[in-house]
């Protein structure tokens, strides 16, 4: 299968996985492996200076996975740019999943602040993967300022509702000249497969894997679904019709 290419870097996997909400670092590491992920998102937070024992990410083999720091928690462009620069200083990585979510209830991304931050970060040499609402015009505006992908949401983060934005996602996919990564809200492997069948270049999943009863098995299920959906897209799906169309011959029936 042809590789996913983001900012001239090739990947065999089209499933990006988030590292939040896992019960333990060991379960996370096993789940990432089962999912076949190559790009994994991470967040940047204050060190807990009263109780300093967070070692979650020590379980990630950095020679194997590309860490994609996010700017979660940013409420405006300025905060997002600050987080991206801190993440760069912490990791040496200049890739960033740009998230600006001022609304704590639905965590919907702010399009204006996202575009502002993207413009600055691209100029500063960052590879920017912006998390956005499924807005085709915003997608084009972000491409114009030089983002490496667009990452439209399927439904609100962590909601597991699936493809609520399908009609807009179709337009984004049709118009995009950068990879489209459907991010947020994919709750089941079938949702991921559906996004891939539509022609999405990749999907990003966190909650649906991390909070499953068996995250490792669910990671594998998402991997298979993404591969199936991609293969189906490349196979040229047959058209849907309103009426039946017999699959068996309509001659030679055993009747007079």
């Amino acid at each position, binding site marked *: 299968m042809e590789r996913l290419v983001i900012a001239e870097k090739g990947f065999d996997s089209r499933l990006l996985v988030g590292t*939040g909400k896992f019960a333990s670092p060991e379960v996370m590491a096993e789940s990432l492996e089962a999912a076949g992920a190559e790009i994994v998102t*991470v967040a940047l937070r204050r060190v807990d200076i009263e109780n*300093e024992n967070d*070692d979650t*990410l020590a379980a990630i083999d950095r020679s194997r996975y590309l860490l994609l720091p996010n700017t*979660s928690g940013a409420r405006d462009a300025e905060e997002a740019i600050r987080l991206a620069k801190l*993440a760069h*200083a912490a*990791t040496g990585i200049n890739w960033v999943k740009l998230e600006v979510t001022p609304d704590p209830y639905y965590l919907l991304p702010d399009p204006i602040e996202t575009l502002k931050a993207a413009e600055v970060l691209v100029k500063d040499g960052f590879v920017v993967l912006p998390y956005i609402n499924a807005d085709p015009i915003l997608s084009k505006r972000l491409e114009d300022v030089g983002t490496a992908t667009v990452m439209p949401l399927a439904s609100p983060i962590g909601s597991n509702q699936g493809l609520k934005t399908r009609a807009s996602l179709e337009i984004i996919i049709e118009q995009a000249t950068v990879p489209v990564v459907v991010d947020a809200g994919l709750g089941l492997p079938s949702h991921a497969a559906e996004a891939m069948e539509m022609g999405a270049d990749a999907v990003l999943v966190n*909650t649906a894997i991390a909070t499953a009863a068996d995250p490792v098995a669910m990671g594998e299920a998402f991997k298979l679904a993404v591969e199936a959906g991609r293969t189906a897209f490349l196979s040229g799906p047959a058209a849907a019709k309103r009426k039946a169309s017999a699959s068996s011959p309509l001659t030679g029936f055993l009747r007079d």
Partner: protein
Amino acid sequence: MDVLKVNGVEKQFAEGEAPGTVSDLLDHLGVNAAMVVAEVDGRIVQREEFGRTKLSTGQTIELVRLMGGG
């Protein structure tokens, strides 16, 4: 009394006993420097500069690190 504001918390030290550098502060707090990045009064300090970056009373320090996230 010397005061450093660390991650939003005011830490008080007897005069002359506050950690002198970012490295000293991490040691004092028992924080492993791996994957940690610091900001002193809004300026990012790279890990390799921790030992050379002097702190003085009244400064605001942010210590951040990567953790699990989506």
